């Protein structure tokens, strides 16, 4: 844009930018309305408009940008992180990246191969275990994921590990039998330690559109999601559904994934995210 009036046409263009970033109609409209408030029909430069747009998006995201807190536990039991989400979102890879990060912070990590279903899912996690020098608790393919999680908790406690990360099989939130299985995993974890799982991280794929809202709602109901990780932001998808999710659920967002490598995990920074949505270069 060059200098132009903040009129209906301009506002429609701004709304379109937001829609193309996957914010959805409702959230896009709310944000452009807020943007127009007090500025309607004023002259603004193109860059200014995008900056204001980024500011409005940031206003929604800033309250949810929260680091992942790891509790220090005095009874020697680990901080348990349960990784959940739909198929292919990036759960296993994110566990690998997190293991690297925790190691670098001097925390000892253990991984549990809770995806006992998908072909070679256990081997995939084992490779991440090797890469990050983290022991992996695994059972044979087809065994009960909840039982595996329980055993891993015993083992992590015995070894005095700081953090246990439990991988799970991907599941679509409308598949009730698979969601019941997830509910059972949480229930069995609680039998071991009433306060666990201490973090339940829902992994969202940035290329996903409006369905991510359903994912947050149903996974939260079943498994008590405590925070979000958004992956695959190294592409052209902007992940704007996160704005709609934040507006509606105020769910903390901890990390973003920006590649397939072990270091490709960054803390979620609302300002950068908002600027990218508004189409401003980093």
């Amino acid at each position: 844009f060059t200098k132009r009036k903040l009129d209906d046409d301009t506002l429609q263009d701004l709304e379109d930018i937001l829609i193309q970033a996957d914010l959805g109609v409702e959230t896009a409209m709310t944000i452009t309305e807020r943007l127009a408030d007090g500025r309607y029909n004023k002259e603004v430069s193109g860059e200014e408009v995008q900056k204001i747009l980024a500011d409005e998006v940031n206003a929604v995201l800033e309250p949810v940008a929260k680091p992942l807190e790891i509790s220090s536990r005095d009874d020697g039991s680990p901080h348990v992180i349960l990784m959940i989400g739909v198929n292919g979102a990036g759960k296993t890879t994110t566990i690998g990246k997190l293991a690297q990060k925790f190691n670098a912070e001097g925390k000892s990590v253990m991984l549990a191969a809770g995806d006992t279903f998908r072909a070679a899912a256990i081997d995939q996690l084992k490779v991440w275990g090797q890469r990050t020098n983290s022991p992996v608790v695994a059972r044979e393919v087809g065994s009960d994921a909840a039982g595996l999680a329980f055993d891993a908790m015993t083992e992590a406690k015995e070894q005095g590990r700081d953090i246990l990360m439990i991988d799970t099989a991907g599941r679509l939130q409308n598949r009730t039998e698979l969601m019941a299985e997830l509910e059972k995993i949480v229930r069995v974890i609680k039998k071991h330690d009433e306060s666990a799982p201490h973090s339940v991280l829902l992994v969202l794929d940035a290329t996903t559109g409006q369905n991510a809202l359903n994912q947050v709602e149903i996974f939260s109901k079943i498994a008590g999601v405590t925070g979000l990780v958004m992956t695959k932001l190294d592409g052209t998808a902007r992940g704007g559904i996160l704005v709609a999710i934040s507006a509606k659920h105020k769910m903390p967002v901890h990390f973003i994934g920006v590649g397939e490598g072990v270091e490709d995990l960054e803390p979620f920074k609302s300002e950068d995210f908002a600027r990218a949505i508004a189409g401003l270069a980093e």
Partner: protein
Amino acid sequence: MFDSLSDRLSGIFDKLSKRGALSESDVNAALREVRRALIEADVALDVVRSFTEQVKEKAVGVEVIKSVSPAQMVVKLVHDQLVEMLGSEGQVIDLNTPAPVPIMMVGLQGSGKTTSTAKIALRLQTRDKKKVLMASLDTRRPAAQEQLRVLGEQNGIETLPIVEGEGPTQIANRAMNAGRLGGFDVVMLDTAGRIHIDEPLMVEMAEVRKVANPHEILLVADSLTGQDAVNVAKSFDERVGITGIVLTRVDGDGRGGAALSMRAVTGKPIKLLGVGEKADALEEFHPERVAGRILGM
């Protein structure tokens, strides 16, 4: 979660003229709701625009017949236009070339390529009595080759033995040779996931295509994809010339507007739908069903 388009349109038309032909202002009001419904179903904005233009052309001036309401009339026009744009059904995998027929699977990370490779191989083997060899060219993702090997073992489909240290083009070469020597009808090439702006990986994909000269190049895409679907489909099509689209996770509760987006920007047919994680969870594409779902009907 969403009101169905019919309900919304009835609400609109209640306030508008109910008799005679659909006026331009009636249609415009209705199309605002259609636009919204399509965006909520994840149809890409540019595609929504051209879609509503086409519906408008057809709708203005149409006589509303007595037996239906104007809302029903517009819903039908929208539905028919969706079906038309989604394309015809029954576009099966084309094997009409000397054996072994190479089929290459491409797409973003985690879209469902490896699973769909096994599904298609199983279908060709059991339904069409073809002898199929599968090869994984994914030397990057941990245990990716092992994943395809296990799927082969579980479903009785042969896989190319894994040789450490080979690159994707070398594996493609070896697969085609093994396909010829072993008397296979079809060779399925599963490739690593890649993001469409990752230049080295897009180049690598084009090199694999040169080596294998695939008869089918199928873009495997998640039906839950949002607005990015157009960028993905366009980029993959430009770089390798896809011959069709396989949509996965259709067993989810997404509205699946990405199907329309990808079809519209590439003009390539949607060939198959993945409807689950198991190897037999593969269905043929029916435009009416997908159209109905996009409209929440």
